[in-house]
Every structure is written in C-alpha cells, then in structure tokens.
C-alpha cells in the first residue's frame, strides 16, 4: 500500500439529540480516490467539516503525513494542503469570480497576478472560467468550477468533494470526472462524498460506508454491485416500486403558455411553459436546481399569481387568479419542496399543521372556529395510514425526523383526495425506506384517477415513478416525452440547455 496521507482514528462528534459521528476510523493514501458513502444524515458532512477545520471533534485523532492534525479553523487545514469543494457552494453571487477566489485562499496567494493564475489553472484542468464575471451570472456547473479552481490554486494534497454531482447534468459530471482522474494521477488524493452508487463504482478506489454515524463497512467499489453497495448503505434490502400501465383519462391540469419574470436578482424568468397532465398520469419535471423550478412551483400552487387566469386550468376551470386556498377548494393539493418552514410550520403541532392545509377540503373549521376534534382525528389518520413515527399528533412538526415529516406532509395532501397533486422534491433528503413509501403513495394516488405532477432534481426518482418526463432549463420547459422513449443521456442534454451544454462537453 502506498503512503498514508490522512489517517482518521476514532473520531466522534455529537450534536444535541444526535450522534453525528461515532468512533469513525479510516485512512486515505496518496493519489487515491476514496469514497465516503452513506445516506443523508449518516454523518458524512460532519466528518468532512471536521477534517476541514470547520468543526472540532469531541474525541478522536487525525494524522496527516504521520504528523498530528487537528485544524482549529479552515485556514489551518488549507495551509496543511487540504482543499474543499462544498455541496452548497460557499460563493458570493454579487462578487466576481476573481474576488470569490481571493477570499478563499491565503492572503499571500491572492497577489496581483491572481487573475492570470486563475486562467492558467482553469485551462490546465479543462475548467474554462472568466475571472471578471459575477458569480451570480454563472450556471451551477460553472460555479462549481470556481470552487474547484479556488481549491487547486493552493496546490492541495487532499481535495474533499461534498456531493459534487448532485447539481450537475450527466455531461457536466463526465467533465468533472476527467478533472478528478487527472488530479489523482498527479498524486493528489480525493475524498469523494456521495450517495450515488454508480458514480462511486466508476470513480473510486476505496470506499468507507457510514450509517448512523458509524463505519459499517469498507470495500473496493469496483468489485461491488450498485445493489450490494446500497444494501450496505441502507442496512436492509429494498424492492423497487412496480408501475402499473393504466390507461389515462381526460386532461385534469393544463398549463398554457405560462410566462413570468424572475422575482429576485440572478433569478430565472419562466418563458412560455405549456404542459398537460391527465387523470391517472404522473408527469415528472426534471432539471438542475435553479432553472426556474421554485418559480414554477409558486405559480402552480398560487403563491404567486400569474398574469392570466387561463394560464393554469384545473378540470376545465381557469385557476391562475386564485390564491392557494381557492385552488385547494378547486381540487388541487401541493407538497412544497421545503419541509420545515414551507410545507409545515416547525413550531406548530401536527394537528395545527393539518388544519393549515386541509381546513377547506376536510371541513376543519366552522364559522371561524376550529374543529379541533375532527382535526386531531384527521392528523391521527395520516399518522396511521402513512406509518409516521411520532410521539403524538400534538408534538411540534420539528420534532419529527426528515423522512417521517415528509411522509406526514405527503399524507396530509393525499388524504385530502385531490384531483391534482403537485409535489416538489417529494423525497429530498429522506431515507430510502420513506422514499419508497412516498413513491408508492404517489403512484396509488395516480391510479385512483388523480393527475400528479412531480418536480424533482432526482432523475432516478423521475424514471421510477413518472409516465412522462419534461425537463426545465433556464425557465423553459421541454416537451414531455414517454419514459420508455427516454434515456438518461437525452435528459442530460436537455437539462444543460442545448447551447450551453455543447460548450461544457467540448471544453
């Protein structure tokens, strides 16, 4: 075995109520691509924050090149040759690329020739960048390049990549992998964090698998299958959902030439979006984050009213001018992306959260007074039918785990028996068991005759449950195509938006 670069021994870290890392040990050799694999909440991000000096461990030791390594702050970790590319980019939209990079490196590296060095490094690794552009104007893929170039300018020995591909199109992923392989052959180690199994099988030399903060297995990914990796990660066997091929009914939801200007700086305008969803059908909208999904969701559920009422038609009735409550009355229910703070009020109890959404359709109020007993029964019904694990329906929404709260939120909407359900990221950040449950529930709803529209960045999810898939890129929606006629590659091309994508490909 080649020289050990980083040796992690018995690292533990607890937060109030959760043991994020429990006696974690593994080692990374020089020039190795090492995967850290685990579900959301398995403790991956906490561990790398410790390595990068953002957090300090409660217990445990690390050595770098055989010398003790206990960074108190990120600049110390950087000085020892550790670079990091964050999952949620640590970039400043209103500053230029060069300013962003200057902020993230040691002051003595941010000299006057910084701009030319940025250009040099980005050329060498095939990551074209213009140092004078505002970061807010860049695509997500380009922003990641800024992070990577910033990292490389410091000649790191270990680069930590925290779920780097979750925001990229499949083509951008290929470019990224080429860069990473080039780095590894030059002797730089990479700690690669992901829960995407195929990626890890292609890219990584070794893998350490975390579950519930503990190391549960180590393996060589190339010798494993995606299924065996998944089972190590989840700790149970899973059966994929089975899709029935029902005939579809009449059009229930119709979006007609919906256009809308962005509401914030660096936002995306929606342009001329049209889509029909029929009874019994699940239509998925894929796309990289930040391409207008949030704006589209707000328009569909009535948080932002559209210019003409007939841009959104529900069962033949124009509803574009109705607020969310009016649309619920008309038969539309929705699951917004953000569980805590959007789909549910964190401090309010499950019963109160049920009232907030289901008041109209479930008659939970009468002449301005709340029907608390009925509401409590409704909340318990949701908990039972969607197997939500909770200490009771009077507990605050924030006390539930992500997966359980998501099941509750989805259940709350589905049990209102909507004719149209719109869900954004219905399984984002929930464990695989809950995700499978939610997928089943959505498909059941559709087969009962509702029209279901799912907006998601998770292509695997869309392929698993959708009948047709459309792609949103830069505020424009592609034609929805039958899943059987689509491949991941085609979707990827549309996700990048044609023009931009060619560039990324041949860079």
């Amino acid at each position, binding site marked *: 075995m080649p020289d050990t670069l980083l040796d992690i021994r018995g690292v533990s870290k607890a937060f109030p109520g959760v043991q994020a890392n429990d006696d974690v040990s593994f080692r990374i050799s020089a020039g190795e691509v090492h995967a850290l694999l685990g579900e959301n909440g398995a403790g991956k991000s906490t561990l790398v924050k410790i390595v990068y000096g953002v957090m300090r461990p409660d217990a445990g030791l690390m050595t770098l090149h055989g010398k003790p390594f206990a960074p108190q702050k990120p600049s110390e970790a950087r000085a020892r040759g550790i670079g990091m590319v964050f999952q949620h980019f640590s970039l*400043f939209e209103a500053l230029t690329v060069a300013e962003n990079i200057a902020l993230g490196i040691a002051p003595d590296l941010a000299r006057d020739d910084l701009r030319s060095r940025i250009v040099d490094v980005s050329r060498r690794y095939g990551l074209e960048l213009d140092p004078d552009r505002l970061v807010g104007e860049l695509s997500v893929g380009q922003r990641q390049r800024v992070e990577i170039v910033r990292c490389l300018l410091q000649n790191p020995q270990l680069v930590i990549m925290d779920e780097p591909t979750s925001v990229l199109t499949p083509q951008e992923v290929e470019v990224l992998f080429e860069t990473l392989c080039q780095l590894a052959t030059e002797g730089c180690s990479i700690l690669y964090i992901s829960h995407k199994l195929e990626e890890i099988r292609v890219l990584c030399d070794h893998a350490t698998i975390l579950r519930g903060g503990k190391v549960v297995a180590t393996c060589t990914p190339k010798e494993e299958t995606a299924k065996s990796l998944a089972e190590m990660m989840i700790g149970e066997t899973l059966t994929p959902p089975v899709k029935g091929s029902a005939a579809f009914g009449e059009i229930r939801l119709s979006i007609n030439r919906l256009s809308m200007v962005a509401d914030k700086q660096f936002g995306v305008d929606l342009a001329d979006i049209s889509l029909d969803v029929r009874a019994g059908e699940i239509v998925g909208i894929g796309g990289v984050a930040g391409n207008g999904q949030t704006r589209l969701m707000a328009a569909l559920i009535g948080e932002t009213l559209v210019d003409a009422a007939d841009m959104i038609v529900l069962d033949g009735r124009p509803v574009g001018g109705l607020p969310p409550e009016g649309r619920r009355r008309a038969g539309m229910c929705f699951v917004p992306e953000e569980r805590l703070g959007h789909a549910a009020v964190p401090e309010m109890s499950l019963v109160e959260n049920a009232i907030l959404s289901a008041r109209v359709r479930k008659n939970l109020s009468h002449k301005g007074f709340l029907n608390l007993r009925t509401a409590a029964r409704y909340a318990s019904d949701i908990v039972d039918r969607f197997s939500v694990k909770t200490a009771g329906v009077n507990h605050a929404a924030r006390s539930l785990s992500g997966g359980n709260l998501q099941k509750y939120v989805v259940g709350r909407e589905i049990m209102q028996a909507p004719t149209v359900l719109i869900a954004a990221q219905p399984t984002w950040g929930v464990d695989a068991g809950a995700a499978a449950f939610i997928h089943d529930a959505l498909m059941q709803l559709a087969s009962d005759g509702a029209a279901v529209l799912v907006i998601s960045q998770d292509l695997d999810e869309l392929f698993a449950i959708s009948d047709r898939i459309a792609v949103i890129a830069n505020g424009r929606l592609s034609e929805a195509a039958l899943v059987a006629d689509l491949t991941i590659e085609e979707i990827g091309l549309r996700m990048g938006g044609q023009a931009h994508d060619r560039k990324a490909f041949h860079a």
Partner: protein
Amino acid sequence: MDLVVNILLGIIVAATPLVFAAIGELVVEKSGVLNLGVEGMMIVGAIAGFSVTLESGNYLIGIVSAILAGALMALLFGFLTQTLLANQVATGLALTMFGLGLAALWGQSYSGKTADKFPKLDIPLLSDLPVVGKLVFGQDYLVYLSVALVLAVSWFFRKTRGGLIIRAIGENHEAAHAIGYPVVFYRYLALLFGGGCAGLGGAYLSVVQTPFWAEDMTAGRGWIALALVVFAAWRPGRALLGAYLFGGITILQLHSQGFGVKIEAQYLSMLPYLATIMVLVMISSDRMKVKLNAPACLAQSFRAAT
C-alpha cells in the same frame, strides 16, 4: 453673491452630520447588519461631545469622547444582536429610544449653555479668496474629515482585502464562515466604526453647528441617514451626494421662510422628511434594483455551528 455663498455654507454645515452618520451606517449594512439605532447613537454622541468639550475646554477631547460614546452604544447593540442574537430591528429601535432618554438625562444641566465656536481652517491668502476661499478653504476641520472619510471608505471597499471580506460577509455569511472568516468579529468591527461615525455626526451638531445642547436636537437626522444608505444603494460616493441633497433641502426650507414664502413654516419643516419618504418609496418600488445592491444577508442573525 453673499446670499449664494451663505446658502452653500449652510448646506455644507447641514449635510456634514448626515455624511458622518450615513457613511458609518453604510459600512455596518455592508457587513450585513441593520442598526436602526443611528438616531440614538447620534444623540448620545451629541451630548457626550458637548459636555466633555465644555468641561475640558478642549475640542479634540470632546470629539473623541463623542466617537467613543457612539461606539459604546454600537457595542451594546453588537452584544445584543451578534452575541445574544436578538432581533436587529427591535434592538435598533430600542437603542434609539434608550439613546434619546440617556442623552436627555445626561444633558439636564447643560441645557441652554453654549460653547465657543469651533475653529475653522484658515490658510492665509487662500482662505481670503472671494467665494472659493470661504467655501473651499474656510470650513471647519470636520467637514474635510467627512469628505476624506467617504473617499477612504470607497477605497477600502474597492481596493483592500478587508473591504472584500466585509462585502463577502454581508453577501453570504454562511459561505464566509465556511471559508473561515470570523463573521461576528468583523460585524463587531463594522458596528464600532458605524457607532463612532454616528457619535461624530451627533457631536458635529452640538459642538460645531449650533454650538449648544438641546434635548432631541438630532431631530430625526439619524433616520434620514438610514434612508440615505438605501438612497445611495450602498455606495459611499452616492451617500455623500445624498447627504448634500438633503442638506440642501433643509437649508432651502430655512431660506424660503426668510424670504416670506406664503406657506406655513410647519409645512416647510416637513420638507426634508417628506423627501426622505419619497426617496424610499421611489427606490423600493423597483424591487429588483434594491435587491441588486442590497447586502443579501442584511439584518439576518448569524450563528456558527461548531
């Protein structure tokens, strides 16, 4: 000709306290903190400057005391909002009320007293030139300081790493923390600077402009300074311009009263405040524009997970 010179002189004197207060608050807001207590910091600076000048007989000590008093008020605000994570809007309003009360208490025995005239720049020959001499070379020292301060802040934000860090923290404090900058520390620094500037602006009123002490003598200038920061779209040069514009409106109102314009004096006195409201409405009607320039993390508390 004399009248024009007098009006211009009046504008400069009326604008200078606004320049100080606004440029200080601009730096604070660039770092992502909204301190609505400018009025309170100004009035405390005013009484501190006046009382210390009177007791010590030394202008310099008086002015420095005013800066310290303003900074101390800002430190209190910083402790409440940055360390204890209190809501910035509520704390800022409380700071204003606290400052007004504290200054009234402190100033009880100084009411009605007057101080000597603050020294002005006097360069032989140059200061004796007609018109230009008085306007450009005959001001008190603080006027020059105020302009220099604006230039310095502008240079600081454009050319220095410290300025870049402050901008970054105001733009995205989570990212700044992740990269390894002590967000709260820099915000304290910005707050202290802002408090010092507000105190200085207050002292300019009580020590230079009038010079006497009267309760509530800041008369809403702190609020105008806050509006100026938005008006200036967080750009130092524009804050200076805005301050002189508002100073101009104040002075025109005084002079039009002098000319016997047939409008009730109360209406004319409303003018600067009406102008403030108009400017704020006009600017915020273009939401995109406000967002383009506003520090994205303005008024958000930051707490680092460790």
